[in-house]
């Protein structure tokens, strides 16, 4: 496996690992790992280190909504221009151009239903190129970034097995 890909796969699973620990796992030197990570950060291949949180566990009821956005393109404004305009709002958690019946799938994060609804009607629907929007509020999340949010299976193995 390509060294960089190998280190990235390890970090993708657990960003908390130190260069020293990664060096122990891969056999590459600590300095080599540090230089590689620095390079990948500069390249913006590594964008950011974040934590996946189940907010419900701590009683923080955040509201997420999936918004379907249909747009009309003009000579002056293509997909990228419209997407960047939407993406810059901090309320926008994610935005993707998708195939199918609409153009953009936007994930909006807010404190409550009203906040999200007003954000969509005031900030997204009013963009001239936006033809219409459909808002789906998220009722429950089962899997996020490859991590399941429901109780995982316990280890049922016997303690000593030949």
């Amino acid at each position, binding site marked *: *496996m390509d060294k960089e890909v190998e280190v990235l796969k*390890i970090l993708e699973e657990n960003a908390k690992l130190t260069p020293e620990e990664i060096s122990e796992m891969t056999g590459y030197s600590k300095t080599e790992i540090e230089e590689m990570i620095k390079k990948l950060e500069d390249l913006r291949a590594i964008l950011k280190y974040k934590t996946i949180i189940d907010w419900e566990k701590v009683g923080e009821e955040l509201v997420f909504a999936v918004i379907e956005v249909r747009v009309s393109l003009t000579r002056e404004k293509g997909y990228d221009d419209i997407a960047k305009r939407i993406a810059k709002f901090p309320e926008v958690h994610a935005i993707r151009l998708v195939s199918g019946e609409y153009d953009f799938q936007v994930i909006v994060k807010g404190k409550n239903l009203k906040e999200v609804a007003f954000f969509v009607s005031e900030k997204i629907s009013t963009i001239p190129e936006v033809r219409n929007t459909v808002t789906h509020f998220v009722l429950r999340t089962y899997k996020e970034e490859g991590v399941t949010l429901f109780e995982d299976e316990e280890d049922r*193995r016997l303690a*000593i*097995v*030949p």
Partner: protein
Amino acid sequence: MSRRRISKKVEELKPSGIRRFFDLIIGRDDIISLGVGEPDFPVPWRIREEMIYSLEKGYTSYTSNHGLPELREAIVEYYKKFGVESIPENIIITTGVSEGVDIALRAILDAGDAVLIPEPTYVSYKPMAILADGEAISIPTIPTFKLNYELLSQYAKETNPKAIVLNYPNNPTGMSYTKKELEEIADAAIEYDMIVISDEIYAELSYKEKHISIAALEGMAERSIVLNGFSKAFAMTGLRVGYTIAPSDITAAMLKIHQYSMLCAPITAQIGALEALKNEEDEMENIRAEYLRRRNFFVKRLKKVLEIDMPDGAFYAFPNIKNTNLSSEEFAERLLMEKNVAVVPGNAFGECGEGYIRCAYATNMEKLREAADRIEEFVNSLKF
């Protein structure tokens, strides 16, 4: 005087050395166990989902004694990667490799026939050979854990063995063989007319070199019984599904025993196994990469306080603990009592395993790190 109730053969059979240790641990959830010889990954969901679907569809009957034809065809294709050309007719789907060991030995042994078993060894070969009326002869392989032509020839000359049981990558030592080393074993096997029973259950977990089956070497297909299964590579331990690849005469003999004693392997597990071969090779690559990282990490940590060479495969480290002046059992027992880490004493895998312990690194990184810290503390505490 009442009549003897238990057969003499069984009564004289020693219980597994692991058992006593297991009793010390049972019911304790505060320990980190490095004693588990099975993957900590669950069966990949695709495989489980396929088995659930098959149950819903009513696939609950017997299969042919041989096993599902599609599965045997898939195994023929799959085993080409380890160098073996076979045909579906020469494959039997067994209830795990354990059954494979049993029917292989029973198919070839007459009373008193000698079987060579290199030690340290997985715990079941010797008792199985004895149950098949054979004479199990241990070959100590300390400290390399490997056979070579001279050693094997020496034992073959003395004992005129019918067969030898190989297991590589090896449980408990993690050792494996290169093609060149296998050729030496093959030369001796041909020279002394031995059948090789080759348990290759850890084949997918080879880290140094690609696994090669001994049956792939010249002149060996006709005298090899290859055993493998889905427990380690696909984590399907409790589903009990394995297979044998052997010449047609031996396959016919094994099938006779299999059809009377087992009839067929569980159909649900066979369907899961087929799905594993069809679609799970990528997943397995990821699992292998993860074990490799754990091995690198854990063995390097062990090296700080104990003597150990980098193992080639499986998920076991088998360090030498003689520098501690403790016996294997004392070491394992004190480590458990004082540091809450469970390992298996090396002598459970044969006499020459004395002075070693087996640590399975099939556990997550955090636990592995903690266990390594505690082993280090424990060994250092002995020096003062």
